[in-house]
């Protein structure tokens, strides 16, 4: 399809412009569905948590409340952005963008299906680690620029928490990198092909748990949401934000959740690979074979499952205290990853690869 577009634009545009245009179209093709996914993640969250809490959830705007995310969005767009007195105006306004930028830019290297990726870079994993680390700047700057004690406390907590869990997360990915022998996300997924038993989740189960738990902590979701614990520091770093500035933080949080969900599926659950691969009688069926075969729908399904876990945690878990979070990260998760990596390295050195 991209060739058709390139030929069409190539007829009347110079070549560099065609390349740029194609990239822009690809970016829009990723970002628009992503924003839609984010919007409906909020709807799904409210419906699912509503179900768990014996209530209905949004059901007024549109059929079964399906237009509720748009109603919320329009409301937030038309609200005034109140800038607190004696705050740093420039930093106050740039902070939401710093939070959202990395959350969206990370999607550049995510392979949605075989070859379906914006930038097929070889150091994709490093790029991801770098970008997810950048997200903390937006939050810290927001807390500092707000000129509020609650926001400041939250910024301190979130800074320490995200930096600590970054380490556990990085170590978990080191295990994946060792198992697959590549930093390219597409190659990592292809290394898991074969059958459902060649997914990395089986040999790297501990790392899988550590990665997802760190991911929950990284996105500041319950039970690790001390940065916005409403009974302690009201709303934390975004307590002074209103209107669109607040909704950009909101967007960044949910985009990050989708990112963690997609990454967990890619690294450990075979990404776009079908769980039925290897069962040729299913994948070779005339029409249903497309459903049972590999494809983007499996990635979406797996990521949605992790999103459901995010919502489930939020509905049923109380919040950890801040020092307990740090203890969990440093004293439990990081040692687990270190031991696992050591054992895995030993297995590789002895030429014994159970996952292949």
């Amino acid at each position: 399809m991209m060739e058709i577009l390139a030929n069409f634009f190539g007829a009347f545009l110079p070549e560099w412009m065609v390349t740029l245009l194609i990239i822009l179209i690809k970016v829009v093709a990723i970002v628009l569905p992503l924003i839609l996914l984010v919007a409906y993640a909020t709807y799904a969250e409210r419906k699912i948590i509503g179900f768990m809490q014996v209530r209905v959830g949004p059901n007024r705007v549109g059929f079964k409340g399906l237009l509720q995310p748009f109603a919320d969005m329009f409301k937030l767009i038309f609200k005034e952005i109140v800038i607190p007195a004696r705050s740093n105006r420039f930093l106050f306004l740039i902070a939401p963008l710093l939070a959202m930028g990395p959350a969206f830019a990370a999607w550049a290297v995510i392979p949605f299906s075989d070859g379906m990726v914006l930038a097929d870079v070889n150091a994709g994993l490093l790029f991801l680690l770098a970008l997810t680390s950048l997200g903390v700047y937006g939050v810290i700057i927001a807390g500092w620029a707000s000129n509020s004690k609650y926001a400041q406390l939250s910024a301190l907590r979130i800074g320490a928490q995200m930096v600590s869990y970054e380490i556990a997360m990085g170590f978990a990915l080191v295990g994946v990198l060792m198992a697959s022998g590549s930093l390219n996300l597409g190659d990592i997924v292809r290394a898991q092909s074969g059958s459902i038993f060649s997914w990395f989740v089986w040999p790297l189960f501990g790392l899988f748990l550590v990665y997802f738990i760190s991911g929950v902590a990284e996105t500041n979701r319950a039970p690790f949401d001390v940065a916005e614990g409403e009974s302690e520091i009201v709303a934390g770093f975004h307590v002074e934000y209103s209107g669109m500035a607040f909704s950009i933080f909101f967007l960044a949080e949910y985009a990050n959740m989708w990112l963690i969900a997609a990454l967990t599926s890619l690294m450990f659950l075979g990404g776009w690979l079908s769980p039925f691969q290897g069962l040729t009688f299913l994948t070779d069926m005339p029409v249903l074979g497309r459903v049972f075969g590999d494809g983007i729908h499996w990635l979406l399904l797996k990521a949605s499952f992790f999103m459901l876990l995010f919502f489930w945690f939020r509905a049923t878990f109380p919040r950890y205290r801040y020092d307990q979070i740090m203890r969990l990260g440093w004293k439990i998760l990081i040692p687990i990853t270190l031991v696992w990596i050591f054992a895995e390295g030993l297995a590789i050195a002895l030429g014994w690869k159970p996952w292949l």
Partner: protein
Amino acid sequence: MFELDRSQYPQKKADGTLDIDLTSGKYLKLWQGPQHPGITGNMAIELTVCGDEVVDATTHVGYLHRGFEKLMERRTFMQCFPIVCRICVPEPDFNEYCYAAAVEELAGLEIPELAHWIRTLILEMGRVNSYLMYLGGQAGAFGQGVIGQWTTYVRDLMLDRFEELTGARIYHMFIIPGGVRDNLPDGFAGRMEETLREIESVLADVDRVMFHNAVFKKRAVGVGVIDTAWLDSYGITGPNARAAGVAKDVRKDQPYLVYPELDFEAVTGKDSDIYTRADVRRRDLLLSLDLIRQILAKMPKTGAVMTKLPNVLHWKIPRGETYVRGECSRGEYGYYLVTDGSGYPRRVNVRGPSYTHSIALFERMVINANISDVAALLVSLHTYPPEIER
């Protein structure tokens, strides 16, 4: 008397105040309330924190003062009723009972046997409501919203029972001097039994999701311990005292209404931390459900519910004073009533457990606590600001 470990915290100056220099950058003054999602009502807590720990705390109340005690001095004895029940929103019946009992004692009224039973039933129903709200609040203070939604659902069923019994959901005004307004409606016991079963099934879920939750235990066990030595000096009563292992229960110690005829033991705990206090209240709630069953089984079915009152507009009560006490869900509740022979109370003083618990005790136990735990500590004492202020 109870000296704290203040090695790294501010020293005491000669006049007893703490040497806190806010300009040093070591301390931060943090206000919580009067509008704060973690505070259970309109009160403010002024915290001085050093890092994450509280070194000094002051409570500020008065945002909800309505002057009820003074208002009652200008109302006839009957007109006080819409006032007393508004002292405590989640459990208004206790105010009605204590006030009615005080008036009856001074006026020398004897109330019928059936009215005693119905009063006890209403008090226990109110206790169930109050505990259900507490459980939701305690989980909510730790960020676990689901418990609050579940308990609100079953509390709504209990409010339905209140509605068919009294005609009102929140402020019932059913217990009046001389008895209660009416007998139970037909089939009330059966519908109550269904409600009790639903509450028990939800409480089983609450037990699994809240009390057996690893994170909840981590937050609540060993946090906010009340020393048994404080009990008398701070005037701690009710579940807060029982969680410390002291079986203080006015229902047992000085039985009133029909409690002597009911079969129960005061619920006690051992550790006196947030978890034990929550657990004592959960078991006390189960006890209340049991008491409601006992009351419905043992009570007489027919009979008078009211004694003949004099004309309430010109009702004069002879000179006298009395103190009526009872065990509400938060602790000992008392009404001190003075009359001077006129048609109005000379003085009404309400002794609510919220005041003693949430001012002196809270200011003491919040010292050295983590700021994350402040809201949970306040909720774990089970206090209501409307009752603090009156």
